[in-house]
C-alpha cells in the first residue's frame, strides 16, 4: 500500500471513530443564585454585584464528521512553515482537478492543517494559507473556484499525536474532502 493511501485510510478511520462518538448528552442547566447581604458591617465594599446571575446553561452540539469514501489520493503534506505545494504532490492535485473538471457538480472542502507548535489562531491562519495554495493549484488545472472551499482546522485536528518531527510532518497537511 502506498503511504498516501495508508494515511487516507487512517484519516478515514479517525473520521469514522469521531462520528461514532457523537452521542449527545443530556444538557442539564445548572442554576445558582447569589447570596444577598443581610447586614453591612463597618466595611464600605458592600456586595454591589449581589443579585446578579451566575447561572451557566449547558448546550450540546456534539455531531460527527464526515469524509466521503473515495479512491483518490486526498492529502498533500507541507514542509515546516511552508505553504508551497511540493512537486511530489502533483499527481494528487492532477487527479482531484481531473475529477472536478469531469463533474462540475462535485464540490470539495480543502482543509488546511498545521503541527501543534504555537498558538491556535495563528496556526489557523497558516492552515488557511495552505488550503488556499491547494485551491489555487486545483483551479490552475481547470477546477472552478465555486467547486472548492478552502478552510482551516489549524492545529486542532492532528493526524498523529506526538511531540516529534514525525508527528509534526504528518500534521502539516491539506486534506481534500468531498462535500
Amino acid at each position, binding site marked *: 500500500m502506498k503511504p498516501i493511501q495508508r494515511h487516507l485510510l487512517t484519516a478515514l478511520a479517525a473520521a469514522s471513530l*469521531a462520528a461514532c*462518538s*457523537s452521542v449527545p*448528552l443530556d*444538557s442539564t*442547566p*445548572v442554576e*445558582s443564585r*447569589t*447570596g*444577598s*447581604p*443581610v*447586614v*453591612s*458591617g*463597618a*466595611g*464600605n*465594599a*458592600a*456586595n454591589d*454585584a449581589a443579585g*446578579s*446571575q*451566575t*447561572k*451557566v*446553561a*449547558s*448546550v*450540546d*452540539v*456534539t*455531531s*460527527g*464528521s*464526515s469524509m466521503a469514501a473515495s479512491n483518490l489520493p486526498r492529502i498533500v503534506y507541507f514542509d515546516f512553515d511552508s505553504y508551497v505545494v511540493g512537486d511530489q504532490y502533483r499527481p494528487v492535485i492532477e487527479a482531484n482537478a481531473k475529477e472536478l473538471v469531469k463533474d462540475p457538480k462535485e464540490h470539495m*472542502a480543502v482543509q488546511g492543517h498545521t503541527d501543534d*507548535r*504555537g*498558538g*491556535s*489562531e*495563528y496556526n*489557523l*491562519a*497558516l492552515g*488557511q*494559507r495552505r488550503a*488556499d495554495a491547494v485551491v489555487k493549484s486545483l483551479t490552475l488545472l481547470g477546477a472552478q473556484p465555486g467547486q472548492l*472551499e*478552502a*478552510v*482551516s*482546522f*489549524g492545529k*486542532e*485536528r492532528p493526524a498523529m499525536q506526538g*511531540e516529534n518531527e514525525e508527528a509534526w510532518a504528518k500534521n502539516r497537511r491539506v486534506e481534500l474532502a468531498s462535500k
Partner: protein
Amino acid sequence: MSFDRRHFCVASAAFLAAPSAFAQFKVEISGVGATQLPIAVARFRDEDRSGQSPSAIIRADLERSGAFRIVDTSASLDETSQPSMGEWRARAADALVAGSVARLADGRFDVRFKLWDVVKGSDLGGQSSAVDPSEMRLAAHRIADFVYEKLTGEKGVFSTRIAYVTRAGARYTLRVADADGENGQVALNSGQPIISPAWSPKGKELAYVSFERQKAVVFVHNVATGERRAIADFRGSNSAPAWSPDGQYLAVTLSRDGGSQLFFIGRNGENPRRITTSQGIDTEAQFSSDGRFLYFTSDRGGSPQIYRMAVPPGKVERVTFSGSYNTSPAVSPDGKTLAYTARSGNTFRLSTLDLTNPGAQPVAITDTSDDEHPSFAPNGRLLIYATRVQGRSVLMTTTLDGKIKARLPSTTADLREPVWGPYGR
C-alpha cells in the same frame, strides 16, 4: 490605603524554602524580592458545617495574587473577637482576618468576617452575608476581594470568572469557572474543536470559534441561557473574535476575500466591513480597553509580529521588534503592558512588553516552553495562560513579573484557551 510600603515584607529565603500551605493550588514562588504583605486568616468558626473552607479559599486567593504572604495560624477567633494586636505583631502579621459560618433557618449560611490592620491596631471593617450553600466559594472569593481592596487600594479579581476549553479524547467542552479554576460549569459540549473564547464586556456572553459545521465559525453564546447564534459563517474560515469595549461589535478574522484579514462585524453578525488589506495574515485582534487601538498579529513584515491600528481604522504601527515570531497579543486594562507569546527556537514563552517606554525590551516571565493564549485579569495584576507540563496542557496564573505562579486544578483533560472575564459578576 492602610499600609504603606515599609510594612511590606521582603520575602525571605526561609519563606521561599517553605512548602506552600495550600498544596491543592500549587502556588509556585520564584525569585526574591517580591513585596508581600504578611496576613493571617484564621479558620472561620464552624466553617466545616458549610461543606467548604472559606478561610482556605481566602488564603489561596490572597497567596495567588502575589500581593500577600500567608502567616500560618491555628488561632481560634471569629469576627466578634478582640485579638491582641501586640501578639499578632509578634507573629509578624500585618493584617488579620477572622470570621464565622452559621446555618440559617432557610438553609442558607450566614457568613461573617472582620479584617484588622495589626500594625495600626485598627478595625478595617467586615461584612455579613446570607449565602446559598452552592455559593459558599463565591462568598469566600468576595471576602478575599474585600481584603485585597482594603489592603492594596485596588479591586480584587477573586470573584470574577474565567472561561476555557477542555479536550478529553474527541470531546471538547467550553467551561466557565471561578477565577481559581474551581466550580467549573459546562457552557458547551462538542465533538469538534472550540477555540478563542472571548467574554463580552459585561460578562454575559462568550464569543468563540466552533468547528461543529466542519469549519471555523464564530458564535456568540449567552452564558446564562445557552442561547447562541453564528455571527460569522462566511465562505472559508471565520475566527479570532474580540469584543469592542462597548460590546456593540466585534473584530474577527475572515478568509472570505482571500487570505486571513481583519473585519469589524456587528454583535448579531450585521454589517461586516474589512479593516485590513495586507497580502499576508492579519489575525488575533484585541481592543485596548479605551477602544483607541486594535492590537493584532500580522506577518506583513515577513514574520509574525504584533502591530496596532488606530481606531477608527487608521494608521498601523509595529509594536514588537525582538525575535522572529511574536503572536497572541493581550493588552493590560490600563493599556500600559502588552503580554504575548514569543518563540525562541522551539520554545514559546509568555513575555511582556512595557508599552509606555518606546525603547523597552520584552521580558520572558516563564520558564516553560509551550505557553499560549495569555489573558489579563480585569485589575491587570495577573495573567492567565495555557502551557504544557509533563505532556499535559494546563492553565496557570502569574503575576506580571513572573514571580508568583499558580497552576489551576485539572483532572485528566487538556485545558486550553483561557480567558479572564470582567468584573461585575
